[in-house]
């Protein structure tokens, strides 16, 4: 039966995998493109400030701008690493 299963197996067609991957990446790239020009720089500056105190990656900061009717919301989301490593760094710097 295993042989029959092998012969009749339905593989996911590679073209549909390609399409799904493209849909995701293009949507992400469009979001980056459509935001105001200063967002990437803002993100870098925020990273520089946060890095004084904790070690984080560029990817751990999410800055999004939503607009609703007559106002805009700048949403800032920073994922901090666990506390043991955060306290360790300033101590090292103190020495």
């Amino acid at each position: 039966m295993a042989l029959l299963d092998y012969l009749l197996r339905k593989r996911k067609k590679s073209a549909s995998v390609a399409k799904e991957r493209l849909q995701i990446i293009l949507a992400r790239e469009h979001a980056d493109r459509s935001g105001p020009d200063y967002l990437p720089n803002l993100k870098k500056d925020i990273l520089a400030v946060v890095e004084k105190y904790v070690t984080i990656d560029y990817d751990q900061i999410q800055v999004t701008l939503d607009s609703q009717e007559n106002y805009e919301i700048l949403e800032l989301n920073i994922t901090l690493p666990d506390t043991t490593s955060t306290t360790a760094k300033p101590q090292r710097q103190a020495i």
Partner: protein
Amino acid sequence: MAKVIVVTSGKGGVGKTTTSASVSTGFAKRGHKTVVIDFDVGLRNLDLIMGCERRVVYDFVNVIQGEATLKQALIKDKRLANLEILPASQTRDKEALTLEGVEKVINQLRETHEYIICDSPAGIETGAIMALYFADEAIVVTNPEVSSVRDSDRILGILQSKSKRAIAGQEPVKEHLLITRYSPTRVQEGEMLSIEDIQELLGIPLMGVIPESTSVLQASNAGVPVIHDDMSISGLAYQDFVARLLGEDVPLRFLDPEKKSFLKRLFGT
């Protein structure tokens, strides 16, 4: 009113130069005075595809720097009287093209020609920006393959933000999708993105599909644009594409998988 059309893609090797050669030849064949400009400074190749490589004396950069007149640099196509080629320079100086210089040449060509085809280099550097900057229309050449589709999307973003029309807030550059190296058999097998997939992903009007064919390589070997080949499905697909660019209503063809005979199926050729 002259039209400036850029042939662009972001990714290299998808068929920009092949398309530039065939589209310019197609316009000229249909009686329109046409010039095709190679913007790939340092990597000149349009001359080879057009079969005029031995007649290059002056180039685009010579004209911009005032070392030659436009008339001296333009090469007359040996087959069509109303087609001219402006070859790229082989200089390694990346800054050889200036926006002012390119504008001057294009404005001069607008006086004398109906269609100005700009063959863009790959990438999104200066040369590619120069090629698309003055465009009224853009042919976005895309292969049914992930990296090509992504790069086409990127170049569409650039057309919509960095072209002169975008910057000046004029009517946007008219975008045409051209899918090349398409293999209906592989699409049917589910191993290649379909026309519908690509159109959905890029969201611009489809103007042509050029099927994968051995005649494209044969044409470039010979230095004769493939559109001249009436026996080739790629040549005929380019003829249809040019007709559509001229506003004619021509249906797409060559999109059904080639039917294999029983013997071929058996021996897998």
